[in-house]
């Protein structure tokens, strides 16, 4: 697959294009030159990614070639069964979920799903769920609890969809209900931000026992553009907003909101998805083992205390 480059990766793009050109020439004696350019490209990529800013991280998190929920599901799980519908209104394609096996262990999985091409993007509503999506997730959560199946959630959404129908059908309540139910669901829940963690629409499948984040994913209370247009009255200040909002995995880990940062290949997950899947598989197995070793009451008490610890306050 041909990599699409982000604006700030232009230096790498030029070098790698040159490498491709030379390869196409297929002349003897240029192997050294190719090698030299490859090393140079790699160094340039390293230079860029070693000091990636928050706004640049947002671009990587939104990269059109980044692995989406279904890519993880296909790579990590077997016997994948997609379960559809909220049994009340519709099947929201912006959130998908179902049953599967993870290393033989039956599990419930769910995640936001973005589309790759225009048609699928529209079908998936750009990964922005409506209430029926959250209610489908709720149904799957309850299914997981009834049959004692651990839950894996994959977070990757710009946010819950802001639309008339979504409001009329109770977007707020649908999100709130999931938060409440997940806080006390009697099975292990492992949440992973794989791309964009957009506010309440992300959190609605993001309450659990473990909060993992891919290195170049972001998680924010409001999009940097939204924040900029409210606080600076200028959406063009999004880069500043991204920086001050503290939305990167490392920053959130330092605030105690993220348990583990899953290191991505140099240049982002899309450059080597297999490496990402291998790491995630290994880390999922470890976290699941730890959680399965706890009895339900310990699991739920620990989860509740975790939630109660969220926040930084002073004392009068």
């Amino acid at each position: 697959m041909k990599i699409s480059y982000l604006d700030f990766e232009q230096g790498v793009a030029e070098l790698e294009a040159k490498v491709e050109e030379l390869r196409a020439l297929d002349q003897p004696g240029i192997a050294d030159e190719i090698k030299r350019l490859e090393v140079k490209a790699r160094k340039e990529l390293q230079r860029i990614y070693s000091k990636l800013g928050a706004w640049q991280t947002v671009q990587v998190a939104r990269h059109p070639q980044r692995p989406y929920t279904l890519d993880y599901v296909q790579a990590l799980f077997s016997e994948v069964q997609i379960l559809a519908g909220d049994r009340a209104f519709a099947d929201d394609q912006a959130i998908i979920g179902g049953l599967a096996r993870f290393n033989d262990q039956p599990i419930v999985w769910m995640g936001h799903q973005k589309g790759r091409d225009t048609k699928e993007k529209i079908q998936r509503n750009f990964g922005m769920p409506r209430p029926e999506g959250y209610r489908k997730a709720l149904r799957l959560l309850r299914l997981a609890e009834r049959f004692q199946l651990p839950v894996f959630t994959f977070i990757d959404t710009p946010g819950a969809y802001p639309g008339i129908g979504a409001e009329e059908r109770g977007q707020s309540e649908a999100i709130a209900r999931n938060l409440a139910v997940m806080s006390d669901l009697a099975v292990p829940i492992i949440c992973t931000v794989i791309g964009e963690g957009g506010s309440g629409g992300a959190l609605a499948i993001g309450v659990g026992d473990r909060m993992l984040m891919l290195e170049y994913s972001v998680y924010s209370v409001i999009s940097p553009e939204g924040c900029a247009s409210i606080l600076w009255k200028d959406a063009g200040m999004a880069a500043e907003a991204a920086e001050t909002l503290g939305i990167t995995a490392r920053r959130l880990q330092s605030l105690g909101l993220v348990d583990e940062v899953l290191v991505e290949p140099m240049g982002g997950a899309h450059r080597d998805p297999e490496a990402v899947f291998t790491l995630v598989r290994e880390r999922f197995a470890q976290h699941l083992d730890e959680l399965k070793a706890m009895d339900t009451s310990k699991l739920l008490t620990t989860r509740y205390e975790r939630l109660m610890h969220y926040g930084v306050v002073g004392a009068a």
Partner: protein
Amino acid sequence: MSWFDRVLPPKIKKKPDPQPQATENKRTVPEGLWSKCPTCQTVLYRTELEENLFVCPNCGHHQRITARQRLDFFLDAEPRLEIAKEYVPVDPLRFKDQKRYKERLQEAQTKTGEKDAMVVMRGLLHGRPVVAAAFAFEFMGGSMGSVVGARFARAAETALVDRCPLVCFSASGGARMQEGLLSLMQMAKTSAAVERLAKAGLPFVSVLTDPTMGGVSASLATLGDVLIAEPKALIGFAGPRVIEQTIREKLPVGFQRSEYLLEHGAIDQIVDRRQLRTVIGEILGMLTQSSSKP
């Protein structure tokens, strides 16, 4: 009492106003004595407005009130004990937009006399114990950050220990951006606290007042066993402007107002502020299996 008696209190008769300044054309009335209803333009005498809990006696418009007024109007006069006030805000992200978060906090504190956007009290409602929480919209738009989350969680935990109901009055624009993801997590925290109450069989009545939006609407505010809204309150997840920009069409008349939510099955009742004590008292009496006359 006639209208004329009401508008001429003894104070005014005894001591006339200092001479009005010529530049101030119509606003010569002493500040705070009179006010005009923003909806029907009726000129109202302050004490009359207060007697009506800041609801226009002419058209029923519900003015926004402070968190303390809210709890004052709701709880029995005695006893009242404010709780969780030891939680005060800090600036964990050193957040700065055009102004520093620290400065915004200080300004809001000076302006309102509150430390943050929620006040919680233990008290009685018609003689029965209750924990009541109220958002202070006057404090940074009632936005929910770490302190609001901590105070609300304490309110729920206090209700759990006291084995009494919880009532919360929401008035908030949503999460407090200046605390970043910490504020988003308050949605999870407050929802978990409500879930504990539900598991313990204790009632939670959520009152949605103007406005209840975003992260507050999508967490504790819509998780009440009973949801009550004040008339014409703006209630929703996404703000009307965001929706308009996204879908590029005009929104229906009355969109995201209490009446619209009632029609769509999102809330139980719309209750006039002057009836809230009675209605909530009756509901809580029944949900707690208490006798009709406390």
